[in-house]
């Protein structure tokens, strides 16, 4: 029996890391094409996100192709690789580069996968256009041809602390220093850099009162013990960072154990913008403050051309994939904004996929917040920067408050759509009449 158990452990490891789920490849759209590799988790636990990002990239490619393509009417053709788990991320990236011969890769969204995929691209001197992968350390690995379009974790988390001072404290009519803040996050690379290195560090600089700094094991099935621990500190604000399963469980157990903070911040929590959250929690999702690098969350403040481009994307996406609305998930917009910036602002000017030419273009890029549906704007830190090499330093986050399954941008001020409403009523009393909302719309 013991032997069987050891075997089990070994084989679990083998299967988790070696056996990929297989991969899908798309047909090559003819010879006059620019082949771009897309590496994303398309099966496995992260697939709900990866597939949305892919759709965004596909729509971006469609739009560019319908406008005549790039470089003398060449069409963009996407070749996908499935990063279902660490090992398939490795083999699929190798395959895209060596078998499919792609010279530029876009993906991979998750930081843990990025740690595997980026070095491979670097080894082959292939440009990697990273849509997300927010873990800070990825910027410090010396990959000269890797660019990070989305924000980095510590920067992201620190913006949440600014949000507490600029938005939440005034709404609660309190001095920010009086507010008791609980910080709860996954004890993972992502969680630590966002919540601990980002939010907590910035909060301390701002003199905010962190009453509990609590990382947790994301495999926990019942978070009651953690919730009770937090509840004892009686926080005004709970700042959370979670993924999917753990996010649902944490929120569920907060509700069941009667943890009722005045503000629940879901900071970059995928679970909070997947339809399932509304299925599960219904009205209790109201008043949650979702902080995210929400592409499209700033649409009111964009330039007219960017606005109409973004609306075209929404339109195409809903038609192409037969979905009702895009508001509930921003991953597709992450894919779209990342890809369209690359296709529109980088590739045409570079004239080829040569890493040096791309580097020249990227270094000179400086676009204002009105030019991209990704909050903040576009400007990259030089590859010589020790902390944030290749990072889009203008990438920012917006805060959206959830009401009746919709997301309303409330911060930063110039992107705000409505006035935020705090404190949140306790769980079970969060039903919200849409009529009240109309009064808040700016």
């Amino acid at each position, binding site marked *: 029996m013991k032997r069987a158990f050891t075997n*089990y452990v070994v084989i679990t490891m083998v299967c988790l890391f070696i056996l990929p789920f297989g991969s899908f490849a798309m047909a090559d759209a003819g010879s006059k094409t620019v082949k771009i590799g897309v590496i994303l988790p398309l099966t496995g636990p992260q697939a709900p996100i990866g597939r949305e990002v892919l759709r965004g990239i596909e729509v971006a490619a469609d739009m560019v192709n319908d406008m005549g393509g790039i470089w003398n009417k060449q069409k963009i053709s996407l070749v996908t690789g499935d990063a279902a788990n660490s090992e398939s991320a490795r083999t699929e990236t190798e395959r895209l580069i060596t078998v499919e011969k792609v010279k530029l890769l876009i993906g991979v969204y998750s930081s843990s996968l990025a740690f595997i995929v980026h070095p491979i691209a670097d080894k082959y001197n292939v440009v990697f256009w990273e849509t997300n992968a927010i873990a800070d350390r990825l910027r410090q690995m010396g990959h000269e041809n890797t660019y990070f379009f989305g924000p980095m974790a510590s920067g992201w988390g620190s913006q949440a602390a600014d949000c507490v001072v600029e938005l939440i404290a005034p709404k609660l009519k309190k001095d920010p220093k009086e507010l008791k803040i609980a910080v709860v996050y996954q004890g993972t690379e992502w969680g630590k850099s966002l919540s601990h290195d980002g939010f907590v560090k910035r909060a301390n600089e701002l003199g905010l009162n962190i009453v509990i700094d609590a990382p947790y094991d994301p495999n926990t099935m019942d978070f009651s013990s953690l919730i009770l621990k937090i509840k004892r500190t009686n926080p005004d604000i709970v700042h959370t960072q979670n993924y999917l399963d753990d996010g649902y469980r944490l929120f569920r157990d907060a509700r069941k154990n009667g943890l009722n903070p005045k503000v629940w911040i879901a900071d970059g929590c995928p679970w909070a913008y997947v339809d399932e959250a509304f299925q599960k929690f219904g009205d209790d999702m109201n008043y949650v403050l979702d902080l995210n690098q929400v592409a499209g969350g700033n649409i009111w403040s964009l330039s007219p051309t960017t606005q109409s481009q973004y609306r075209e994307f929404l339109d195409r996406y809903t038609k192409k994939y037969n979905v009702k609305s895009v508001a509930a998930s921003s991953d597709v917009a992450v894919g779209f904004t990342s890809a369209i910036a690359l296709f529109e602002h980088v590739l045409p000017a570079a004239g080829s996929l040569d890493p040096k030419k791309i580097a020249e273009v990227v270094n000179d890029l400086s676009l204002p917040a009105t030019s991209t549906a990704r909050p903040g704007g576009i400007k990259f830190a030089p590859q010589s920067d020790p902390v944030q090499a290749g990072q889009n330093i203008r990438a920012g986050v917006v805060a959206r408050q959830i009401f009746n399954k919709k997301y309303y941008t409330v911060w930063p001020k110039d992107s705000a759509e409505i006035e935020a409403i705090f404190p949140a009523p306790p769980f079970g009393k969060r039903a919200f009449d849409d009529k009240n909302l109309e009064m808040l719309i700016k």
Partner: protein
Amino acid sequence: MEIFIQLIINGCLTGTTYALMALGLSIIFGTLGLINFAHGDFIMLAMYGGFLISLFSGMDPYLGLFIMLPISFVLGVGLYRVLFKRLIDAPEEAHIIATFGLSFVFQYGAMLLFSAEYKSVSTDYSADVFHIWNQYIDYPHIYGAMAAVILIALLISFLRYTNTGRAIRAVSEQRRGAMMIGINVHKIYAIAAGIGLCCIAVSGVSLITFESVHPTIGVHFNLLCWIIVVLGGIGSIPGTIVGAMIIAVLEMLVGYYFEPTLTTFAYFIMFLAILMIRPSGIFGIKERRA
């Protein structure tokens, strides 16, 4: 003290969930000696079963058991005839490889059928909380615990007081001895597989009332259930229950008093420690030497 009681209550409720999850494995492994590494994925499928029934009929998932139990039993018998029967006399490596294959088939199949999105069932009691003496207990877990208690009671009385139940115990201890008194062991194995799948059905239905299902949710369940079954002692239902309770309560206490990042780690250490003191698990009886 209040907190401590709350932790213990929560631990016990989670423990019943764990016990429910591990029971099917305990029976199939204990009786057939089948090392089923697709167990977590069976639970995943059962969760989808509960989800589908309530999606199409609008019934409470627990009522859906009236449909799911007979189907599960038949599936268990079928699975035994088609696959398990060929495996039980094969070396352990074959069990592992075959059930791992099964696990991938299930995960991939679920991915194709249900997509990778998260699904769950909302019931009228999903958000209801029982509030007494400053203690919070949520109804989905209360009903889950009730289901567990009923199932365990039925199972134990079945095994103890019916002829078929005795035969299952007999076959799991001594296959040859059982043949010598005229028991058709393949029939009993098939019944045991059916019962195992019924237990899995109940656990899946119970889970779907408070957990979201997705195609790879079973991977973590699998490790958890194996640890519970081995910790409690192979083939012992009381052992499985005690193992589940120990792990759940330990998780709660470690999460509160010690370090929430170390809950999984803590039960792993506990698991190794107990196996060092009692290699056949808490309720395990030393294996008879032939």
